[in-house]
């Protein structure tokens, strides 16, 4: 406190003063009120009507008690005269302090409310005597103008359209200069607002609800750390109000407080937004991290498997542990190479290889998706040395968000491709070694070298050996691409190897010219009989195979050097195969008469047939008869009249007649054993040659 009432003091000090109302015992002065108080000049002079207690000078007035901390020589009359003024000043001061305290409390409690701006303007209007309306402008950096964000006592639809430039109107001027203004008098205010644009002026007028201009107004900047955030403007339209400098000071103090709150609110909102963004980013990062982690783990596992040469099976198992969906690996002929339990219950559509998307996979060597009824089938190519080796097929639910797993599938298919290519290369190398051995055996290569090669392949030269030759039937490979034919042959090789394994037969299976050969070896200690028995059982098994094969089986020979004889047997059987309609397997030991016929040239056989049956053949040709057919049936059914007549569909008298004519033409008697044997043999040879 300061003022003229203290000017007469010769020496004064700031003293803590308490003024207490006797009736209510309430402290009128503020708890921290100090007054410049004249100090005692003459220590001996004791002012009347006061006493000292614990260094506090106490004045007892009729209605009040005044206490001053420390020494003073002011007398009681002074206090009697000044108490009314002091009481008024204290009341004013207390009001302003209370307003600020209340506003601080209000703003603090509503700092994060969405309507904080409305709270600010409302609180200020309530705090200032005569204030009844007001605007809160905030500066928009993007358009560099003041926008009204909250108002009391104006029409929103109009004031919302206000866009004040810097210096425009009273508020624009306060924003531009940062200097608060108090204007009293309607005329003065009207004059101050002439700097507004027509547009803003019109909207201001439209926004007012009664009179166009107030009696008084205060406009203060909302300033925080030298930055002006906006402007707070309050008006008084009612009761001929008048704003004082004290009101201006109060509004200014309130505005400072509001600016802090607004800045804090902005910082808080910004921080909240950042926190939300951070949270979203974090979640996205976690998802991406999880994907990268899965991919990296999978990558490491597969890399380790490949490095340790654990093979395709280990790769499948790693895929199985990583991918929870049913999946299977098929070779190009769609034979399952590996499948999970779930995949075993699935079926590829019958037209899988010709499905447009599978065709696309084959064309591009890239994965594709086939929508199914309730799920989707992801088809990934497994690339071999020359072409697609097969497919990795994964069945996924349609509604599952698993797009990222495609990276795992792709990597799995790639590693699988490399592994299968490697295995294929190893197999081809093995086949090459085996093929070399067979070629060596047949070409009479140095025995020592062959024995070493055989030993390397786990064979003992002194054992018993038998050779099996096989090939795909011409019908089964018609129209297939060379790659597919190769695959089918590989399938046959696998089947032979499995069969040998199952039976404990040592041997090698490989390509030999256009055939596949399977060389079986049997321990010499078990004897030839056992070897023959085992070969017989193998032949029986081969006959039960449902594969489109023609197979020739050679005899069992002692010693590896003689295996070429078994191969010759097998080749002869294969030769017979073109002459026999049905048998899938011909074993040399059971080839019957055919094996003897094979020993003679075709010319020799023709001469024999001509020698015995020539006249009948000529007769048939000349007379267009079919005595030959009758004779062959007669031979085949060993003179059984009933069967022959049934087959030829003739009466027995007719048959008698024909047989009689045939004997006459051939000049042969069928009751003669030697003649009949010759006729039988000639008919066999004729058949043999005909089929050839």
């Amino acid at each position: 406190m300061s003022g003229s009432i203290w000017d007469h003091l010769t020496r004064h000090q700031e003293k803590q003063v308490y003024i207490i109302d006797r009736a209510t015992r309430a402290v009128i002065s503020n708890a921290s009120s100090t007054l410049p108080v004249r100090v005692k000049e003459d220590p001996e002079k004791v002012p009347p009507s006061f006493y000292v207690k614990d260094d506090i000078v106490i004045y007892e007035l009729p209605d009040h008690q005044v206490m001053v901390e420390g020494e003073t020589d002011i007398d009681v009359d002074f206090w009697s005269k000044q108490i009314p003024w002091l009481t008024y000043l204290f009341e004013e001061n207390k009001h302003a302090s209370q307003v600020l305290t209340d506003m601080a409390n209000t703003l603090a409690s509503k700092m994060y409310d969405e309507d904080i701006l409305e709270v600010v303007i409302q609180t200020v209007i309530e705090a200032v005597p005569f204030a009844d309306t007001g605007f809160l402008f905030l500066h928009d950096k993007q358009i560099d103008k003041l926008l009204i964000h909250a108002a009391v006592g104006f029409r929103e639809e109009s004031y919302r359209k206000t866009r004040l430039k810097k210096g425009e109107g009273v508020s624009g001027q306060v924003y531009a200069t940062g200097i608060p203004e108090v204007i009293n008098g309607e005329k003065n205010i009207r004059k101050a607002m002439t700097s507004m644009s027509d547009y803003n002026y019109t909207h201001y007028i439209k926004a007012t609800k009664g009179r166009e201009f107030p009696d008084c107004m205060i406009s203060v900047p909302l300033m925080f750390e030298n930055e002006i955030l906006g402007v707070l403007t309050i008006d008084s339209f009612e009761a001929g109000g008048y704003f004082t400098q004290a009101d201006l000071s109060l509004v200014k103090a309130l505005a400072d407080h509001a600016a802090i709150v607004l800045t804090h609110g902005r910082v808080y909102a910004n921080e909240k937004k950042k926190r939300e963004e951070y949270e979203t980013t974090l979640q996205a990062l976690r998802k991406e991290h999880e994907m990268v982690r899965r991919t990296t783990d999978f990558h490491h596992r597969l890399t380790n498997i490949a490095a340790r040469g654990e093979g395709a099976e280990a790769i499948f198992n790693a895929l199985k542990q990583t991918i929870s969906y049913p999946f299977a690996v098929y070779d190009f002929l769609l034979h399952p190479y590996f499948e999970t339990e779930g995949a075993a219950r699935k079926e590829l559509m019958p037209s899988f290889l010709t499905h447009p998307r599978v065709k696309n996979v084959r064309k591009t060597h890239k994965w594709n998706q086939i929508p199914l009824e309730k799920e989707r089938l992801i088809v990934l190519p497994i690339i071999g040395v020359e072409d697609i080796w097969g497919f990795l097929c994964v069945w996924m639910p349609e509604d599952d968000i698993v797009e990222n797993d495609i990276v795992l599938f792709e990597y799995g298919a790639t590693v699988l491709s490399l592994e299968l290519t490697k295995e294929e290369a190893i197999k081809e190398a093995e086949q090459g070694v085996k093929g070399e051995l067979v070629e060596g055996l047949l070409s009479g290569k140095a025995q020592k070298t062959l024995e070493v090669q055989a030993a390397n392949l786990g064979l003992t030269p002194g054992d018993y050996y038998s050779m099996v030759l096989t090939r795909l039937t011409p019908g089964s490979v018609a129209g297939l691409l060379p790659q597919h034919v190769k695959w089918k042959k590989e399938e046959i090789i696998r089947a032979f190897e499995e069969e040998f394994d199952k039976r404990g037969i040592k041997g090698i299976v490989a390509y030999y010219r256009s055939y596949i050969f399977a060389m079986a070896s049997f321990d010499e200690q078990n004897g030839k009989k056992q070897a023959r028995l085992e070969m017989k059982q193998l032949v029986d098994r081969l006959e039960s195979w449902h594969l489109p094969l023609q197979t020739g089986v050679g005899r069992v020979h002692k010693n590896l050097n003689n295996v070429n004889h078994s191969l010759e047997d097998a080749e002869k059987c294969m030769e017979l195969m073109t002459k026999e309609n049905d048998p899938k397997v011909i074993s040399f030991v059971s080839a019957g008469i055919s094996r003897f016929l094979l020993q003679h040239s075709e010319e020799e056989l023709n001469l024999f047939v001509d020698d015995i049956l020539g006249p009948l053949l000529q007769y048939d040709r000349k007379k267009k008869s079919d005595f030959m057919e009758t004779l062959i049936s007669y031979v085949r059914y060993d003179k059984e009249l009933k069967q022959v007549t049934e087959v030829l569909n003739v009466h027995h008298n007719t048959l008698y007649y024909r047989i009689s004519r045939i004997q006459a033409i051939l000049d042969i008697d069928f009751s003669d054993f030697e003649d009949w044997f010759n006729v039988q043999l000639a008919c066999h040879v004729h058949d043999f040659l005909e089929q050839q």
Partner: protein
Amino acid sequence: MTFSIIAKCKETGKYGAAVATCFPGVGAHSPHIEADTGIVLTQGWVNPPLGQEGIDYLKKGYTANETLNHLLMHDPGKELRQVAVMDQYGNSSSYTGVENDEYKGSIIGENWSVHGNVLEDPEVLSQMAEAFEASEGPLEVRLFEALAAGDAAGGDKRGKQSAVIKVVDIAEFPYIDFRVDDHEEPVQELRRIYEKNKHVLIERYYEWVDAVKQGIVL
């Protein structure tokens, strides 16, 4: 058959893309951009529905990688296409199908990526990337610089015909959206159109948006 760039401005958060090709009216097909969401760009044998599908997916909060994988998963002709996606974080992801003609490829940088196919030279992409990185100023200017660099390096080996530039800021209020549908020098023409007209709405963009929203006259 195309070279393109997508980018997000680190300072303003604006998304933008620029494309040039030897095909008429490229702007009708691509790119798809949405403010506060991201960008989806398809080229090669363009599949336009991928654009909106990708934007919808990005809106759900998926990343560029996830969105790209989603799009590829449901596009049976993915090998015919080049697809690039940028998410709200400014991360890019791109895919170049094997059935696009050479030279084809993409380069991904921080908050940007460039892509192309049937290019005259691999340099087209590296020149675009360097130009964008070296440039300063508003996003649209940096996009123009990149596109011009690609054009100067040879661009599309079949020739030139159309170009487009799009930059978005506030949702539903186009910021920059200029197209050249058929021109001998589409990239230069696109820049000319921008320079001539930027003062109309672009330089007063926020005032315009504010005016439209409040129903007032600019």
